[in-house]
């Protein structure tokens, strides 16, 4: 399969790889997917007192499109309020990366990861 340039760029130069302390109250962690399915995404957000996501990190086990989807969303959510971050839809991710139909589930996972990270953060407050 030939890859789209944007997927390749995110894959080769992934943005924001890493982890925050998941026990930190300002951090929300989302972990979605399953090893048996070949995709696991961990997305973490760090939220400021103003309710704005001021940093994000990810780690992903999965294909190039899964890595690119998670890398992309860490860029997108930085600087957004929680409500704004929740408006990111899998369709936007798939369109930006020109994902083929068999890779749409990667974008779905990335959207779910955002939601889960935000839910986790809110639970802690």
């Amino acid at each position, binding site marked *: 399969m030939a890859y789209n340039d944007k997927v390749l760029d995110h894959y080769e130069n992934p943005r924001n790889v890493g982890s925050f302390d998941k026990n930190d109250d300002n951090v929300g962690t989302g972990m*979605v997917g399953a090893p048996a399915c070949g995709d696991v995404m*961990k997305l973490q957000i760090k939220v400021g007192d103003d309710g704005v996501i001021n940093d994000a990190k990810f780690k992903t086990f999965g294909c190039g499109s899964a890595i690119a989807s998670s890398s992309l969303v860490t860029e997108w959510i930085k600087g957004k309020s929680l409500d704004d971050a929740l408006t990111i839809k899998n369709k936007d991710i798939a369109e930006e990366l020109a994902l083929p139909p068999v890779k749409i589930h990667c974008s779905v996972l990335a959207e779910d990861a955002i939601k889960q990270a935000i839910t986790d953060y809110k639970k802690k407050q």
Partner: protein
Amino acid sequence: MKLPIYMDNQATTPVDPRVLELMIPWFTEKFGNPASSSHSFGWEADTAVKKARKQVADLIGADPKEIIFTSGATESDNIAILGVANFHKERGNHIITLVSEHKAVLDSCRFLESEGFDVTYLPVQDNGLIDLDLLVNAFTDKTILVTVMAANNEIGVIQPLAQIGALCRERKVYFHTDAAQGVGKYPIDVNKMNIDLLSISGHKFYAPKGVGALYVRRRPRVRLKPVMFGGGHERGIRSGTLPTPLLVGLGAACEIAAQDMESDNRRILALRERMRQGILGQLSDVVVNGDLEQRLAGNLNISFNYVEGESLMMAIKDVAVSSGSACTSASLEPSYVLRALGVNEEMAHTSIRFGLGRFSTEEEVDFVVKTIVKAVNKLREMSPLWEMAQEGINMDDIEWAAH
């Protein structure tokens, strides 16, 4: 060293230049139809086909009259399985095969099931090899055919053909083997191994694509119904004009394989071991899939735990390999062959098949080892599963949401 490096020799091999050279005149100057018995164009083509038939037969210890030329192993498998089943259905309707067979065998069997046949799909052991006790117990008085591959295309394990052949012969059950990955790679003798039908694929051992053969035993005679009809070529079993240049290539590849087998194997095995030790010596949590002893010299199938196969292939884009990861298959299911070995889905997703061949070099192996080690380390740094493993978290304790 030229990039990209080809390390997918179980998918296909390049045509050996020695083979190609012999083929060329048969495209242009000597283009006759071997079936044209009325002029010299036909005669010379017929002579070439006869020679090729003998070269193929000699490689497997057969008689030239027992060789049917086909387009490749898929066609040979279809003719063998459907042909025997259809001819002998009055005698019995039971067929035995393995779950780890190639799709050409499995799907032929599935089709026969829809036609009222019973098929037993034997599981394989954790090392990929057949359990002969299970085979013995699977025979019924309705069994007409056993079909077991010579060597597996994904994990390279070599099935004990001689033992299977002996069990079949005792019971007067036909034994077919899909030897696409075996012929030309290690010694196969249809008489010593009691093989009744054997499928050959040219492009797996340096002959061109689009040509293969089916061995069909004459004594005791194996009778089959053809699956395609026409001018009655190849004893009526496979009608269609014979492709002289391709057959010349197939024959030459067989002769070279017989002649170079020992030295090729010694060299390729040394490369494979250099590669295996290079990777296992530098990376933890890697597993070789399939038996290491009963195995093709040129095959190495490795699971790199915590790193998904397709992303690993992207990271080593200068190296052409295959993966058992679902992401590389149209079905989105990980390799059924690895699953048959009891490899869990997670590990199946992390597998890469390295296929070394006649033209692989030590320099290429060293480059691939270096590239793989670097890529796996990089991807593990990005892998949440690796991170959890380092923290001592057991993946099995987590409730994953399947999607």
